[in-house]
């Protein structure tokens, strides 16, 4: 298991050092600094073995988190733990920075003592941790409170405490999708997928039992065949759309979701944590609506000039508006000057980023726009050809490119006197560009 955990600043100075196992000595702290942080080369692997000691590291801005071990540990678990550690710290004190870590080092030690015992990760849900790691001392608690804490930390529903009360029961559901594309210069889709997240903010009293439904192809087909349509709440939240159902390649759930139930019935039921959390992640690859198409044209005129023309076409309902559109056209390293003309928005050559950045605030569906640029190059005798990085694009659209629709989210709280209809529900769809690239 994890033998020790260190946090360094960008210079390699130790900010936090917690050793869990006797086989990890103080020299391990230095070994990582010398061999990884101060190494001249780019990091070639997130796992490094130095003198039979393995180091796992992740970086958050300029802070290094390293877990150390001498055993054959579960590597995936160590990384998951490091990410979780970052989440917990962020939830407690905001951004992970040297300043914040130094300011909260006592808290961090307390957390590390709690969430990692002898190198074994323990309950690391912030909701539960915040009930008893408060930096205030806990002497004041009553006996009932204490046992409530311990049963929550160790219990089946470690992510939610009992006795939550709200005057207004409300929940917000965000379907956030990032659409990824790799297109060949000829406009052939090399790969495209949507990775989506359903993020929920719940402000519900008691221990509510929730059931979430979407236009999952498997469920819809099953219902269609069986004829026993469970249409309570159908199209209650989502509007009707052209596409009936979508094929989800794979999905993963927050630990509150009963996986065995999903596996057998494909229904998503759970008792939600309080506040904001990620209910599920999913991935689709079929029938993706690609909101934009980029058509590049690069022409080399002699050795000292490049002509670039890029057309973008929006491909969604004309009534919808895309926002924060940004097209990034890479330029060679030996660029000396650029002249740009664009029909819409603003375009600028940014020498420090080796790119022309073209920004458009808003663009409706089924429109097209164009930019042309003349790039002047300094003559070089560098034999190596310019690698022509792909043209990338950023945007935000108010729909889900996968076609996912929320069909219902039902809330039952048998003990308290509010029903599903009393809960105010909000649903929002946001599609963003992930890695949206067209080769040129």
């Amino acid at each position: 298991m994890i033998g020790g955990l260190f946090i360094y600043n960008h210079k390699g100075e130790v900010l936090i050092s917690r050793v869990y196992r006797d086989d990890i000595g103080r020299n391990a702290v230095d070994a990582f600094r010398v061999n990884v942080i101060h190494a001249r080369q780019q990091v070639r692997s997130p796992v490094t073995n130095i003198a039979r000691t393995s180091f796992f590291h992740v970086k958050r801005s300029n802070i290094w988190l390293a877990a150390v071990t001498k055993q054959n540990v579960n590597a995936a678990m160590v990384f998951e733990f490091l990410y979780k550690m970052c989440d917990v710290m962020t939830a407690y004190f905001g951004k992970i920075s040297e300043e914040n870590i130094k300011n909260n080092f006592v808290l961090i030690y307390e957390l590390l003592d709690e969430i990692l015992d002898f190198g074994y990760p323990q309950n690391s849900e912030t909701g539960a941790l915040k009930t008893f790691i408060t930096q205030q001392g806990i002497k004041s608690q009553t006996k009932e409170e204490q046992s409530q804490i311990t049963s929550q930390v160790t219990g089946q529903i470690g992510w939610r405490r009992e006795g939550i009360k709200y005057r207004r029961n409300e929940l917000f559901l965000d379907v956030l999708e990032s659409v990824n594309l790799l297109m060949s210069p000829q406009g052939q889709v090399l790969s495209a997928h949507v990775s989506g997240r359903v993020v929920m903010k719940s402000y519900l009293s008691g221990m509510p039992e929730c059931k979430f439904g979407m236009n999952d192809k498997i469920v819809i087909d099953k219902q269609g065949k069986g004829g026993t349509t469970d249409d309570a709440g159908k199209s209650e939240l989502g509007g009707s759309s052209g596409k009936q159902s979508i094929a989800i390649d794979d999905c993963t759930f927050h630990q509150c979701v009963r996986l065995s139930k999903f596996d057998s019935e494909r229904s998503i039921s759970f008792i939600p944590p309080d506040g904001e959390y990620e209910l599920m992640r999913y991935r689709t690859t079929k029938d993706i609506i690609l909101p934009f198409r980029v058509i590049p044209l690069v022409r080399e005129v002699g050795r000292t000039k490049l002509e670039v023309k890029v057309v973008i076409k929006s491909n969604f309902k004309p009534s919808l508006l895309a926002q924060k559109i940004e097209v990034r056209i890479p330029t060679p390293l030996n660029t000396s000057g650029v002249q740009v003309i664009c029909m819409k928005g603003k375009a600028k050559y940014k020498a420090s980023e080796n790119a022309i950045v073209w920004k458009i605030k808003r663009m409706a569906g089924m429109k097209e726009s164009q930019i042309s640029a003349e790039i002047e190059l300094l003559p070089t005798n560098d034999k190596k050809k310019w690698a022509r990085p792909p043209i990338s694009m950023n945007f935000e659209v108010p729909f889900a490119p996968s076609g996912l629709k929320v069909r219902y989210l039902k809330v039952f709280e048998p003990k308290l006197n509010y029903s599903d209809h009393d809960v105010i529900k909000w649903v929002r769809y946001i599609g963003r560009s992930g890695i949206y690239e067209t080769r040129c």
Partner: protein
Amino acid sequence: MEWASQLCENRGLGSKMTDSKYFTTTKKGEIFELKAELNSDKKEKKKEAVKKVIASMTVGKDVSALFPDVVNCMQTDNLELKKLVYLYLMNYAKSQPDMAIMAVNTFVKDCEDPNPLIRALAVRTMGCIRVDKITEYLCEPLRKCLKDEDPYVRKTAAVCVAKLHDINAQLVEDQGFLDTLKDLISDSNPMVVANAVAALSEIAESHPNSNLLDLNPQTINKLLTALNECTEWGQIFILDCLANYTPRDDRESQSICERVTPRLSHANSAVVLSAVKVLMKFMEMLPKDLDYYGTLLKKLAPPLVTLLSAEPELQYVALRNINLIVQKRPEILKHEMKVFFVKYNDPIYVKLEKLDIMIRLASQANIAQVLAELKEYATEVDVDFVRKAVRAIGRCAIKVEQSAERCVSTLLDLIQTKVNYVVQEAIVVIKDIFRKYPNKYESVIATLCENLDSLDEPEARAAMIWIVGEYAERIDNADELLESFLEGFHDESTQVQLQLLTAIVKLFLKKPTETQELVQQVLSLATQDSDNPDLRDRGYIYWRLLSTDPVAAKEVVLAEKPLISEETDLIEPTLLEELICHIGTLASVYHKPPSAFVEGSRGVQHKRLPARAGSGESTESPDVGQSVSGVSDAPPAVIPSQGDLLGDLLNLDLAPPTTTVPPVPSSMQMGAMDLLGGGLDSLSGSHYRTEVPSPQPADFSERELGGDLGGSPAMGVGVGVGVGVGVGLGPAPVGMPAGLGAAPAVGGGLGDLFDLGGGVGMTSGSYSPPRVVWLQAMKAKGLEISGTFARRGGVIQMDVSLTNKAMSVMSDFAVQFNKNSFGMAPAGPLQVLTPLGPNQTVEVSLPLSSTGPVMKMEPLNNLQVAVKNNIDVFYFSCQYPISLLFVEDGKMDRQVFLATWKDIPSDNEAQFQIKDCHLSSDAASNKLQGSNIFTVAKRTVEAQDMLYQSIKLTNGIWVLAELRIQTGNPNYTLSVKCRAPEVSQYVSQCYELILKN
């Protein structure tokens, strides 16, 4: 996020904002000041002082001098302060054991505290203090805490047992904590169960043979129930523990799989990977024809793909594991090529791993896409990545024949870029392409030669020199090129020197007139001016060979090379199996067994995949059971591994055999070993003349050594040298084909050892058909020709009897063959020395070579012969058994066999029945081996023996066969797989003939 930042602000307003100041106090006399503060009456001041101490400790300052003062602060109501003091204690108790005792009282008292959080804190901290005196005091509180009413205390106590065991294992056993821990597996609280499982697994690891984790269906059921309820981390502990269990039968295995599959949808990647591990392992036990087996396979792909959208570090772990999974079960991800396409912004470690998997998944179906991608990658910035991409293009060419042409032209495009490392890498792979597809792409040599000057890496130089030597006859200025390398001979690396030596000898053999000087120069450089024994030996061998018998030298040095295999960098199967059992862990990231990087007893035990159902009961202890079944019973893979045990032993210090072309040094090594073996052979009698190698001790040793080092078909050079020794030292006949002496070493592998052991005194000679009359006297003006074919000592011979039934004397005999399917041609004249008088018969053995012109005949084994004498020319045709063409080095490496079998499309498989055959499988195997049909592996399932056999034809075609023999059933089933399916029926005829003779 909003509330988080708000929280941050709130904290900022409070006292916390100033915590960072503790890091900055570096005045002199600091310790003294701290001491005063620690002893202050004011609580706040005390706390501040302890914080300063901890901050100093963190940055590595020695504050152990403050030990008594800090411990004095322990008695406090303030939990925050208490935790800080505990932290200090854990760090320094070991260096101040006597003073640490001072803390014991407080611990013991805290273990009785009404607040469960404080009880747990005390027992948790106490376990971390590695001082004997304290551990003695720990036992009683720990015992109480293990039975505490509060689950939080129990789950902490469970881990504490593991801590205590790490300090004093004996104490834990004596105190009976292990039993209490086992009881906790049945605890009502899932987190207690998970921690108990984690603690027990760890303790069990250091006692490999203890029956500590007594996994039986009841406990498994408990674990599976807890699995649904505990935290994500607990699920990982439980799944990792489950993976060590061996289900009793396929039904149990299936029911566990069914309950584990829902975990594949967990958000935590580690849960997913551990679930994959359990499924991959238990799947081994499921019968392949089961519906559920197929369903399970389908369920595995999506979660694996999803792992690739995790953070890059996890992607890396996932990709390393996918690399293993793809090797073990390629069918799972065969349609998912696209997700492995490299993204521009991927970190380099992710890019390199993706590339590796892309090559493994490349097939005829997706090759166009893959190539387009690879070409794109070859223009990127990172040197390692570009090199790997170029190498990948070469590997695609070798793997997918249809794409070879496109790959070569892509490589040529890349060479045109003149980017130094791209050119070098391209040349290295083109060499392999030449090997794979001889006489096809040599037209590009000119382009390659243009780049001679830019090559500065040994591997590229060696590859280029090999090409020049191999195709010396087509390169006009080959001598100049090689001479230019010779100038700096001593500055070259050994790899280049060896290659240069061989290349110049080849050149000399091809163009002897112009290059005599050059060859002398290189031989003297190698033998007289070099300190390198390998180089010197090779030099001497060539020298002697050339001076004794240039014809033999030609046969040896320019011998035909065996084809190179398609799959490269495969992990050796036993290691792969072990790594599959370690999915998700560091071992699977490093692709090394835990014993390679873990110290001490932990992880030394090798894990094995369970055997498929019906292969015998495993014993109580899962580990023992697994290893026993792994060795003695039929293991799960298609190819059984009788050699596993030995294989493991050898793997300890030898690299696992790779199926790639062995680099030059290793083939040299092999040559060197052959030198020994060959020498012994010629001392122990003329082994070359016996038809089948006799199992003499010397022979035995040769096989062993050759097999271990080579393992896979060696390059021409190594083989050539091996025979060369035989020629040089022993009285072997002139013109002996190269394949002969070297054959046992080339086929290689431990399998040979086993075959020998089983085959002592039972081997029989190669099959020879009965003599038939080919040409009747009345049709040939009195000349009657009858005959047969035989393969003796690696030489195909046509045994002809010529009878003169005419009245006049016949003389001036000569023979010629028409072009035929396998290029058979007379290797010498028809030796009828004296004229043949009336009614006289002469027996002649005509040696045949298989390097003549080729034309497909119908039937395939038809041979048209013309015989001439002083009277006329006569024509006849005859058919030869195809077994004549089975060469002696036709034993395929087991791993290569497996890969090839999979690789040949199933359309090419043909099935035949061999009726009325009453041999046992061993006898059949021996009989077939006499005719160079080699049993690569044998597997027994339900009284049915399956022999996996390989055959190599003289023209390099491999034929793979599976022979099923059921005890008591005289009808055998033969399945033949070959890239040239038209051969199959002739092969089956041979089987029938051989087995029935």
